[in-house]
């Protein structure tokens, strides 16, 4: 390929996959300018992507309460009284229906670690805390990440409270946990 053809190749793949053109040039310039032998492995870019419009099913109220009322709800089993958060429509032990209970939004860290390396999607947040929080009044652990100035201040037993974001989308990330000072 000549330079004009290569530029068209970069623009096409940039539009198709959203990969910056300079990254495409760095990765594929040698190949496209004919430097690789004809039998060498040929690499090309690709992306897998699917759009959704999905339903939260029986957990819908939980997410609507987050978005509309800045409230966290658990689900209490009518039979054994166990309170789930994340909520579920039926107890996984008794198989009986649950009912909604409003939670305080406070809790305690049951396990935690500090991530210094992570996935592409979260790399800009490093370092951050990855923890299981048990909300007061529940029998469950909720996985969460916490961005704090000093990761050393977070440990097993640290009391935390949920803080709601100004902009809420009806997702689990509508709130985050902060240590209670």
């Amino acid at each position, binding site marked *: 390929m000549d330079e004009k053809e290569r530029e068209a190749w970069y623009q096409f793949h940039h539009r198709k996959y959203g990969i910056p053109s300079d990254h495409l040039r760095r990765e594929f310039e040698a190949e496209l300018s004919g430097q690789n032998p004809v039998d060498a492995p040929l690499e090309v870019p690709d992306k897998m992507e699917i759009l959704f419009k999905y339903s939260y099913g029986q957990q819908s109220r939980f997410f609507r309460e987050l978005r509309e009322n800045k409230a966290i709800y658990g689900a209490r089993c009518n039979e054994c009284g166990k309170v789930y958060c994340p909520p579920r429509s039926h107890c996984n032990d008794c198989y009986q229906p649950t009912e909604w209970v409003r939670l305080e939004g406070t809790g305690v860290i049951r396990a935690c670690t500090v991530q210094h390396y992570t*996935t592409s*999607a979260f790399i800009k947040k490093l370092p951050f805390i990855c923890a299981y929080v048990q909300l007061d009044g529940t029998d469950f652990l909720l996985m969460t990440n916490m961005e704090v100035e000093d990761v050393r201040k977070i440990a097993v037993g640290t009391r935390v409270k949920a803080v709601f974001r100004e902009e809420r989308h009806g997702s689990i990330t509508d709130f985050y946990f902060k240590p209670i000072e």
Partner: protein
Amino acid sequence: MRDVAIVGMGCTKFKARWVDKTYYELAFDAAKMALEDAGVDKDRIDCAVYGIYNDFFQRQYQPDAFVHDYLGLGLKPMVRVNSGGATGGAALRIGYAEVASGLYDICLVLGVEKCADCYNYEVAMATPEVLRAILYTADMTYDNPAGRTAASGFALAVVAHREKYGNPTDEQMAKVSVKNHFNATKNPVAQSPKIITVEDVLNSRMIVEPFRFYDNCLYTEGAAAVILASKKVAHEITDNPVWIGGLGASVDYVMPGNRPNIYTYESSRVAARKAYEMAGITNPLKELDLAELHDAFTGTEIMAYEDCFFCEEGRGGDLIDEGAVMPGGEIPVNLSGGLIGCGHAVGATGIMQTFEIATHLRGQAGERQAPNARRGLVQSIGGTLCTWTVCLVLEN
């Protein structure tokens, strides 16, 4: 149930990247080696089980169908197994059932994974994008948005274990890393043969506390295959069958809030107990000659010593301190190098571990041969905080 033997096996080199092979081409290489090892033609295969973990890795949904096609096994039945990191062990379990049930006489069990085609253009590395693909296996509604990695899940369990028992310590974990990298230097298929010191491990950069760089396995591309046969057919095919004497499997709650604790891997304890019961083992430390345990992380291997009942709960660190799990020790662990030294080609890993134990039981492990190896354990685990475990006891 009928007795089931391994009559043939093959394993490609485990590498960071096989840029010159697709996933089905890697699968073909492993299948060809296994068939040649067994000395049978592919037409004798009655059915196949494929262990393939992540569809994103392969850039293909239902990759099993394309492997089956490429191996030329058209019109034979097959099934694909996906149980996270335990995919290889789970595939062996299904293959065992196919033959033990009497439904089929010869079953190909093949694991393959090609992860490093995932690529993060911004940092010009595969790993963060590999981790992003894996993050789709976390609960999409509640856990995925927290950005956890496989390492952080297993780290949380190790941290909880430390809270309760005070170990594994950083030094104990480092010793496991040194051992497994060293063991890999004797294994021709290993990805990470290295002579390193405890200080090298402790000085390597922090990944997810308490795991430093050398506490982690690396992502690997590769394929491994075994051919299983019924007793009658096994004796006809080979003079050195390796028998599956025990098998146990367990799947824990994937949402750890449903578990009574997170400082042990309960699925491993259940699976190991079942496998030992079936094999008639009452004292695993004495009755097993070697083990391949799923050391995705050094701390996880130490917890596995406890969960496979090599010692009391909370005493796993002692086994590495005392040298029992070293080459020549009472129960050498991960003579292949394990996931840390040999590599973790997810769907292929449990089958690579089985290949390793069977190689020792056949007396073909060369420089790394465990002396008088008669019986070995394979532990294959996966999922958030060890959701899946499959344990196999292999005997000669």
